[in-house]
């Protein structure tokens, strides 16, 4: 009897909190319907093959084709290699420049901070299509401003039709992408720099750590978690990239597949292109591999990097 009353009391004290479920429901339902179910749908699709107009279960057959058949594997490894290069350029150029810009912006002596901040961030909110076409025009050897501007400063001899040359096209496009997205690391780092407590800075100044030394020894360690977040965002973004290459170079990612990344490779396989009929099953297999690559990258970050970063947090 006692226990019953107690139970009743606790029930009365802690009623079922319906509102939690109600508030979570929209997000959970939408996310499940549009992200989780399609994800499993893709995984399932990759295990089937269309034979004589019907879907037949083939286990890992599509993956064996993808890695074993040179007609697929050569293209796959090429796309993966290009994608890694695309990522490396972002890590080496976009993120350091983003940090540098943030450091400059947070300097109290700089004027027109708001203007620079907005100007640098604006390309990020532009559509890929606009960025792709704008840069295609800028770099066009026929109508572009790039050859004229370079002529102006006597560098005309260094101009080549970058987007049309196998050895430069991917790097050029990576830099265009860097130009577009440099605002994101800048903003995140800028916010992190502003959130460093003044006491820490003052203490450093008392100890005689100022200027560059202060940035390297005090501020940089404190913004490392943000840099980690940026790295993982860049990683996910780059291995999902597609739009810029598609708008600038088309689905065949020319010249000679030199700008082909996993996204464009997936697009051609899944939807087909021109006379190539789409193969949703092979496309799903490629999408699955992309998912696993991204998953692996995120796991490395979560379990190896983030756990070590924690000790720097306040």
């Amino acid at each position, binding site marked *: 009897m006692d226990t019953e009353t107690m139970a009743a009391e606790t029930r009365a004290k802690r009623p079922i909190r319906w509102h939690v479920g109600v508030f979570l429901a929209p997000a959970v339902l939408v996310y499940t319907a549009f992200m989780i179910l399609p994800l499993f749908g893709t995984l399932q699709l990759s295990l089937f093959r269309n034979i004589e107009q019907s879907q037949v279960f083939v286990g890992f057959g599509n993956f064996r084709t993808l890695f074993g058949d040179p*007609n697929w594997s050569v293209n796959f490894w090429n796309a993966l290699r290009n994608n890694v290069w695309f990522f490396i350029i972002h890590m080496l150029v976009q993120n350091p420049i983003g940090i540098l810009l943030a450091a400059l912006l947070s300097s109290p002596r700089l004027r027109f901070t708001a203007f620079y901040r907005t100007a640098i961030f604006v390309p990020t909110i532009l559509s890929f299509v606009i960025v792709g076409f704008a840069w295609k025009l800028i770099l066009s*050897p*026929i109508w572009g401003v790039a050859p004229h501007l370079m002529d102006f400063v006597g560098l005309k001899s260094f101009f080549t*039709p970058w*987007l049309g040359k196998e050895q430069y096209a991917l790097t050029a496009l990576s830099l265009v992408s860097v130009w577009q997205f440099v605002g994101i690391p800048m903003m995140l780092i800028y916010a992190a720099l502003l959130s460093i407590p003044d006491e820490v800075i003052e203490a450093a100044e008392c100890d005689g750590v100022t200027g560059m030394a202060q940035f390297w020894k005090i501020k940089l360690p404190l913004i490392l978690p943000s840099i980690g977040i940026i790295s993982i965002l860049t990683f996910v973004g780059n291995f999902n990239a597609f739009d810029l290459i598609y708008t600038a170079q*088309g689905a065949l990612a*020319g*010249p000679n597949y030199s700008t082909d990344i996993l996204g464009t490779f997936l697009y051609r396989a899944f939807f087909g292109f021109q006379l*190539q*009929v789409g193969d949703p099953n092979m496309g799903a297999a490629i999408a699955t591999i992309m998912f696993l690559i991204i998953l692996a990258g995120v796991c490395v970050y979560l379990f190896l990097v983030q756990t070590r970063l924690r000790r720097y947090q306040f």
Partner: protein
Amino acid sequence: MKTKLLTALLLGTSIFGTTGMALAEDVTLNIESWRGDDLTIWKDKLIPAFEAKNPGIKVVFAPSAPTEYDAALGAKLAAGSAGDLITCRPFDKSLELFKKGNLADLTTLPGMENFSPVAKSAWQTDDGKSSFCVPMASVIHGFIYNKDAFDKLGLKVPTTRDEFFAVLDKIKADGTYIPMAMGTKDLWEAATMGYQNIGPNYWKGEEGRAALIKGEQKLTDKDWVAPYEELAKWKPYLGDGFEAQTYPDSQNLFTLGRAAIYPAGSWEIGLFNTQAQFKMGAFPPPVEKAGDTCYISDHTDIGMGLNAASKHSEEAKKFLSWVASPDFATIYANALPGFFSLNSSPVKMEDPLAQEFVSWRGKCKSTIRSTYQILSRGTPNLENETWVESANVINGTDTPEAAAKKLQDGLDSWYKPAK
């Protein structure tokens, strides 16, 4: 027997019935198409011409965007909401629809006898036994040139390859014009306006194409490598930075009068007529020696089929028979200069440039693009690879032999010609 009698009775009532009743029973046919550009032509010219002769049938032309057409059509067919008449892409895309049962068999449609076997080949089963789309139009490849520039430099229209390169040399030496407006950025220009344009003269049109499908010839044979060797020679005559020159760039270079020769498809005629401020002429791909038989790519590009699930298939067939008639061909070919009717009866056209193109049908032998029928079914896709390799050859990153070998190896990996 019974149904026939019933139809006869029904027909009788519709003929003798009041006009008001006939109007109330109007049948509406919807046309699915990717040719949004042609909307006004259909609305103002073609459909009124048909409706005037066939009271009681209304036709609606409902195009979607070219890049979305195939996907949208597939979804609509699956959902059962597709139009009665379906504009057909050539070869495998339509063949697949026929095999799935989305397109009706039109082999016995009245009017099909107006087309040659080559014209019908794009919409037939591989054995050629059943046809499923009425051929509407083809496009012809050749070279369009700036007549004013040729007059100014005192150049004669080339007929042989040596003359062709001599003309290019002269234009280059003069320096006023870019000899040839073509870029390799978009890849397909190099393949379609380059390789498929000059190629038929080397592989002897249909003869070589059929031999390739049968496996008697290979892409590494002399006749198939030679067009690449010629393409490689084009490089010095293209504009500065042609590697990054896109298709619209090439069109603009030519219509602005900055380039003298444009390797073309006849579909350009309509646009060039409105944009170019100078006189234009055209010549077919030059042959090796004067007097050689010439071959042209007269590529079947667009047709129209019947949705197998259509509720008004009788009326739709009536419309398709009209599409197969010379009446339709005349209106269509004149409204869209550069899209040539495939009808066997000759069509009178007003546009001089279009006339020039179509006149080649009389003196040259027609063929279609070599990669389109059967050979682009597998992975790697021969057509796409041809784009890439044609651009590589012109860019100089692949030798003609290496390019041909890559293409043949790719084809060999999945294509086993029927013995």
